[in-house]
């Protein structure tokens, strides 16, 4: 999945053409829906749509560039005054498209893989750091639970949140407890021989044929898109000064479609 995420990010950040960005976004949504389920990504999609809409709106109201003026506000109005153009709106939408596709490209790490899976997949040379990270991840829910407990108990002792300084009554005990918790965890790891020399592994995540297929498809997508750009098939797109329709070529589009490889592999596995 790391190769797939990297390929999505490469294409989305490399091209200025909204057609290819939209193709990557579509591939990412379909892949996440197939891997994590539509119900799990529904909220994420809604949040991303809001962020993208905000980015588009921000560009529309702040960039008074472009030839196609939709309407104007008096220039005496600070920040907002000036012409509002179709070009600024579409460029803003393209920016939103980029943000949405980039977030979704990284989403499998939180939606489809556990943090421990990612840590286990680290190279052997990072195994000690990986074990330490895995141990720290276990402390995160502990810290959250401590925060709830301390804030509730301090409320019952008469504490009320009144300004930043009052939060010391909660934050200080939570920090102290978390530090003590990490020291106890370190003590426990030391008592189990952590750091005594090179480590072995009971099991490492193994690459199956389907994993190699997704990796190969991702590499092919990057290579084909890079070649397409170099050869001029993936033409760049500019919103300013006058809006033009993006050119679409089959070859870079195929590169984007290769990002659907995980969906095909998972279907075949079922």
């Amino acid at each position, binding site marked *: 999945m790391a190769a797939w995420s990297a390929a999505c990010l490469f294409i989305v950040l490399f091209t200025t053409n909204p057609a290819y960005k939209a193709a990557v976004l579509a591939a990412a949504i379909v892949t996440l829906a197939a891997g994590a389920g539509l119900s799990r990504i529904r909220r994420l999609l809604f949040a991303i749509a809001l962020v993208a809409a905000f980015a588009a709106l921000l560009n529309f109201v702040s960039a008074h560039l472009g030839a196609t003026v939709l309407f104007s506000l008096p220039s005496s109005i600070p920040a907002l005054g000036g012409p509002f153009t179709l070009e600024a709106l579409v460029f803003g939408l393209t920016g939103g498209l980029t943000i949405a596709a980039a977030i979704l490209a990284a989403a499998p790490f939180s939606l489809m893989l556990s943090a421990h899976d990612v840590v286990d997949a680290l190279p052997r040379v990072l195994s000690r750091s990986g*074990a330490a990270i895995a141990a720290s991840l276990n402390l995160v829910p502990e810290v959250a639970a401590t925060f709830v407990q301390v804030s509730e108990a301090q409320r019952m002792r008469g504490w009320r949140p009144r300004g930043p300084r009052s939060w010391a009554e909660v934050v200080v005990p939570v920090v102290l407890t978390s530090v003590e918790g990490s020291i106890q965890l370190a003590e426990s790891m030391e008592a189990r021989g952590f750091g005594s020399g090179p480590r072995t592994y009971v099991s490492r995540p193994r690459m199956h044929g389907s994993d190699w297929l997704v990796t190969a498809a991702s590499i092919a997508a990057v290579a084909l898109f890079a070649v397409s750009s170099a050869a001029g098939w993936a033409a760049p797109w500019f919103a300013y000064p006058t809006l033009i329709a993006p050119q679409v070529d089959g070859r870079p589009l195929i590169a984007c479609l290769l990002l659907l490889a995980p969906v095909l592999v998972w279907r075949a596995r079922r």
Partner: protein
Amino acid sequence: MARAALDRFTYWYPRASAPALRDVTFSIEGGLNVVAGPSGGGKSTLLRVFNGLVPHFHGGQMSGRAEVSGRSIVDTPTRRLARDVGFVFQDPELQTVYATVDREVAFGLENAAVPGAEIPARVEEALEEAGITQLAGRTMRTLSGGERQRVALASALAMRPQLVVLDEPTSQLDPEGAALVLAAARRIASQGRTVIVSEHRLYALMGAADQLVMVEDGRVSLTDPRAWSEPRFTPPPSRGAPAGNEVVCVSGAAAGFDGRPVLSEVELVVRGGEVVALMGPNGGGKTTLLRLVAGLLAPAKGRVERQPGRIAYLPQNPAALLHRPTVRYEVRFTIDRSGDSEKPDAILSELGLTQVADRYPRDLSSGERQRAAVAAVLAGTPTLVLLDEPTRGMDASAREALVRLIARLRDREAAVVIATHDAELRAAVADRVLMVAGGRVTAATNEAMRR
């Protein structure tokens, strides 16, 4: 050769004014060795000598000699001693590294560079020894405290150590979980390994113990476990007067959190001068009911009415509250906020904390910290007292002091609700016992209370 031996061993923690262990000389041959003594006496420090965490991890100064399996603990780092000494800590939450049981048990073996192909069989063997083969493949966060603690035991056993050390392994567990962990400790000792266990629930171990090691004020003395008798506990006199006005009235209430229903159709009235104990399995809803009564959790349905007045609420991990420079400051903080006129020294003396009143609370032993937190929460004259597992990790004298304190608050017309697994505490102070299980609150049957 003795499995472990200390000879005139004295140890000071860094910047400590007095030694935590004083001139300790004794040896451990084998079998089940029970370490007992009051909170803050040096039990945990002594146990940490056996795997070298004292002095290697904690620093400080020492004199004398300490050996485990013929190795000097001064010359052998803890991570090397880990192959001979398995160690299980108090808190099952704070000794978990990986997300699944198998990986967790394999962690020590990976550190010891046991070949990957051998590890699954060693994990299986350890799970069997700890009596938890049924947990193989489970995710750690789905386990109960008792199950987690037995996974910690299996993790220690996976290294095939000759010496297994358990530091109050049951202090965070419910009775069922505690019984399973102690049964596993007894079984391991009977299989020929040396087990050293520090514990407050001595009655569960003394029948099988080979040696009783008493630790008090840093000094160690050995006792024949057959000479041990359970300390007699005199419960305070009952109130002798009918309960007063309704302090809390819960009617038809439902509650839960994270979208998960926990309690439904709860009916509960607690009156001033009455002590109500809540019992039931972990996850049954005792803490949710206390939070509902305290007003920390809004009812999803029904009503919760409270008489005006201060609510004293002791959460499950009260030590997390402590952050003031001294124990006395912690108590004064509550008293000042509540507008009471009580002097902090009264409750400190009642809970046996006078000697440590001017110390930083987080420098105290876990048992002393628990008492400090109890003092900090219960100071003054609360109208409603809500206690969540108040005797966790307390020794016998601390529990007795707590019982007297609860009785005093009750006699001052406070309504007291205690969520507890502690049958002795219930028997000593409770006027009524309720069972909280399966989302319902019902009167506890005699059979349930005997369990």
